C-alpha cells in the first residue's frame, strides 16, 4: 500500500508540466545521441550536466536519466538501418538487426526492438520500485568499512570488464583516484597537488574531465576516419511484429529483461555487458543457432531488452547506496551533488518526492520513447544523413560553452581541452577512460571511508574482514583481480570485456 501511495506521489511530481518537458527533452536527446554514431550517452550527459543547474533537482535528474535510457532505444535504430552501433550497448544488435533490414524486415526489427525495450524498461522500473526501498533500509546499517569495500569492488569489476589489459585499467583507476583527491583534504583542509594554483583548491571539476575525455576525445578519434554510412533506403513498413515474430521473441525478451536487470545492479556491470550476455544466452538456448548472424529476430529482441533492463537496474546501487555502478551513473551522481543532494539510503526517506518522481518520470519517459521510436522512425532515419563535418565542430563548440557555463571559469575550458587531448592519446594507446572517471568520482568517498574506518577501528585492518558484507566484497574483488592470471579465465574476460565509454 505504501508503495502505491509513493508511486502516486511520484506521478504527481513527474506529471508537473515542467518535469514533463524536461523528461521529453531528455528522452528526445537520448534518442538523438543513440541514433547518431560517434556520440554516446556519456558525451551527451556530460554536455548537458551544466544545464541541470538552471532547474530544480527533479527536473535536471529526470532529464539526465531520460538521456540514458533514451539512448538505449535510439542506439538500435542505427544498428539496424546503418550497421553502425549508435552506442556501445547496441553493438550486438547490428549482427541480426541489419541482416533483417537487408532482407526487407527492418520494420519488425525496429518494432521488436522498441517493444522489447518498453517491456524491459517497465519491468526494471517495477523492480526498482520494489527493491530500492528495501535495500535502502538495509543499507542504513552500512558503516564506512562496507562502503569502502563496495567501492573497491565496483572499481575492480569495472576494470575487469574494461577492454584491454587489466593492469592498464587498474592504472587508469589509480590515476582517477589521484585526480579526485586534488584540492583541499576534507578532513585536515590541507591543499593537495594544487601546485599553488587557486583554481585547483576546490579540485578538478567532473564536467571538464568527462567532457574532455569523452566529448572532445571522441571527436578527435572520429576525425581519423571518414565515416561511411550504408543506410537502408527502402521505405520502412509494417513496424508491428507479426504473430510468429512475437512467438519467437517472447522468451528472449523475458530472459533478456531478467538477465539485464540483474547485470545492471552489479557494480561495474551495465547495458553493454547485458546485451552481449543476452545474445550469447539466446544463441546457446536456440534450437537453430545457425540462424544467428543471418537475421534471427531473437538476436534483436533479447539484447535490446537486456540493455534497457540493465539501464533501469543500474539506478538501484546509486539510489540506495550512493555508489554509481558505472560511468553514466557517476555522471548522474554529479548531477545530484551539483544540487547539494547525496544519493544513498536516506534519499528515499528524506526526499521521497525526488526519488519517486524520478521513478515515475522514467515510466512516462518509456511511453514517450515508444511513441518517438515507432511512428517517428522516419525522422530519425533522416537524421542519420546529417553530415559529420558540420556536426563535429558543433559538438566542440557546445562542449566549450557547456564547460564554461558550468563554472563561469576559463580555467575549466583549459582543463577540458587538456583532458580531450590526453583522452585521445590514452585511447590510441589502449587505455580506456571509463575506470578513470568512475575512480575520479569514487576517489574522495573511497578515501573518506577508508580513513574513517581506520580511525574507528584504531588502525585494525581486520575490521574489513570481520564484517560479512565488507569481507564478501573484498573476496570477490580479490578473485576478480586474480582471475586474469588464469589462462582460461583470461580468455573469458577478453570475450566480455567491452568499451563502455563509446
Amino acid at each position, binding site marked *: 500500500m505504501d508503495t502505491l501511495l509513493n508511486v502516486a506521489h511520484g506521478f504527481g511530481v513527474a506529471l508537473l508540466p515542467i518535469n514533463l518537458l524536461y523528461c521529453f527533452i531528455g528522452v528526445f536527446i537520448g534518442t538523438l545521441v543513440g541514433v547518431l554514431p560517434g556520440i554516446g550517452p556519456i558525451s551527451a550527459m556530460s554536455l548537458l550536466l551544466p544545464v541541470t543547474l*538552471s532547474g530544480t533537482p527533479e527536473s535536471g535528474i529526470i532529464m539526465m536519466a531520460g538521456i540514458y535510457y533514451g539512448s538505449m532505444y535510439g542506439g538500435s535504430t542505427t544498428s539496424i538501418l546503418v550497421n553502425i552501433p549508435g552506442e556501445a550497448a547496441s553493438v550486438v544488435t547490428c549482427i541480426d538487426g541489419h541482416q533483417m533490414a537487408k532482407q526487407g524486415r527492418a520494420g519488425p526489427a525496429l518494432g521488436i526492438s522498441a517493444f522489447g525495450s518498453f517491456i524491459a524498461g517497465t519491468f526494471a522500473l517495477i523492480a526498482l520500485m520494489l527493491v530500492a526501498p528495501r535495500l535502502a533500509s538495509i543499507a542504513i546499517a552500512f558503516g564506512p568499512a562496507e562502503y569502502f569495500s563496495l567501492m573497491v569492488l565496483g572499481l575492480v569489476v569495472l576494470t575487469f570488464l574494461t577492454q584491454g*589489459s587489466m*593492469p*592498464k585499467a*587498474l*592504472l587508469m583507476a*589509480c*590515476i582517477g*583516484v*589521484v585526480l579526485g*583527491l586534488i584540492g583541499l*583534504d576534507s*578532513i*585536515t583542509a*590541507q591543499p*593537495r*597537488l594544487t601546485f599553488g594554483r587557486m583554481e585547483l583548491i576546490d579540485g578538478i571539476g567532473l564536467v571538464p574531465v568527462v567532457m574532455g575525455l569523452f566529448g*572532445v576525445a571522441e*571527436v*578527435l*578519434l572520429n*576525425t*581519423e*576516419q*571518414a565515416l561511411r554510412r550504408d543506410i537502408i533506403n527502402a521505405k520502412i513498413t509494417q513496424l508491428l511484429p507479426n504473430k510468429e515474430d512475437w512467438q519467437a521473441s517472447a522468451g528472449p525478451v523475458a530472459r533478456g529483461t531478467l538477465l539485464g536487470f540483474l547485470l545492471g545492479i552489479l557494480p561495474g556491470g551495465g547495458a553493454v555487458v547485458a546485451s552481449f550476455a543476452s545474445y550469447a544466452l539466446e544463441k546457446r538456448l536456440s534450437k537453430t543457432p545457425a540462424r544467428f548472424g543471418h537475421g534471427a529476430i531473437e538476436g534483436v529482441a533479447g539484447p535490446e531488452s537486456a540493455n534497457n533492463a540493465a539501464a533501469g537496474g543500474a539506478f538501484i546501487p546509486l539510489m540506495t547506496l550512493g555508489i554509481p555502478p558505472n560511468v553514466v551513473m557517476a555522471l548522474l551522481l554529479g548531477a545530484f551533488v551539483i544540487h547539494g543532494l547525496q544519493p544513498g539510503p536516506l534519499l528515499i526517506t528524506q526526499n521521497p518526492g525526488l526519488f519517486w518522481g524520478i521513478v515515475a518520470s522514467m515510466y512516462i519517459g518509456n511511453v514517450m520513447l515508444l511513441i518517438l521510436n515507432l511512428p517517428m522512425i522516419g525522422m530519425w532515419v533522416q537524421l542519420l544523413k546529417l*553530415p*559529420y*563535418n*558540420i556536426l*563535429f*565542430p*558543433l559538438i*566542440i*563548440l557546445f562542449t*566549450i*560553452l557547456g564547460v*564554461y*557555463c558550468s563554472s*563561469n571559469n*576559463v580555467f575549466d*575550458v*583549459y582543463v577540458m*581541452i587538456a583532458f*580531450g*587531448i590526453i583522452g*585521445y592519446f590514452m585511447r*590510441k*594507446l*589502449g*587505455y580506456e577512460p571509463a575506470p578513470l572517471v568512475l575512480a575520479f568520482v569514487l576517489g574522495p568517498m*573511497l*578515501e573518506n571511508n*577508508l*580513513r574513517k574506518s*581506520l*580511525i574507528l577501528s*584504531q*588502525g585494525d*585492518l581486520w575490521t574489513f574482514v570481520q564484517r560479512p558484507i565488507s569481507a564478501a566484497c573484498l573476496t570477490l574483488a580479490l578473485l576478480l583481480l586474480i582471475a586474469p592470471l588464469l589462462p582460461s579465465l583470461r580468455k573469458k574476460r577478453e570475450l566480455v570485456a567491452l568499451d563502455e565509454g563509446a
Partner: protein
Amino acid sequence: MNNDTDTNIKLRLSNSELWGGLIGLGLGGFVTWQALKLKLGTINDPGSGYVLFYTGILMCVFASSIIVSAVTEGGPTLASRWENVRWSKPLLVIACLAAFSFALEPLGFLLSSIPLMLLLLRLIDPVRWTLAIPVAVLVPSGMWWVLKRLLLIQLPSGLFGIG
C-alpha cells in the same frame, strides 16, 4: 619488415606499450613523492598523504607490470597505432584547440570561437565556403546571444570588450 614483426616488437624503443608503462611509472613516482611531502600520518590516524602515497605505489606496481609485459611479450609500435588512419586530422584539431585556448582570454569568446569554427569546418572534412562561413559566424553568435541576453551568462569579452 613484414607487418607482424612491425606490430609486435620486443625491447624496442618504438614499442607503444613500453612508453605507456614508462609514463605510468613516472606519474606513480611523482604521486608517491608528492604524498611524502604531505603528512602521511599513521594507520590509527591517516594523514592527508596516506591514500595518495599508497595509490602512487599501486600506480608504480601496475605500470611496472605493463613494462614487464611490453618487454617480454612485445607490443604494437607507436607508428602502427596511427596506421591506415588520417592522423593529420586529429593533430589539426588539437592545434586549433590549443590556439583557441591561448586566444580565449585575450580575444574573448566571439573573436576566438568564430575562427575556431571556421577552421574546424574547413579542416576536418572541408565544408564548402558558402556554408562554412555562415555556420561559423551564426552559430557562435547565436549561442552568445542566447547565453548573454536570455540566460544572462557573462562570456569572456577579451581585451577589446567584444562579446
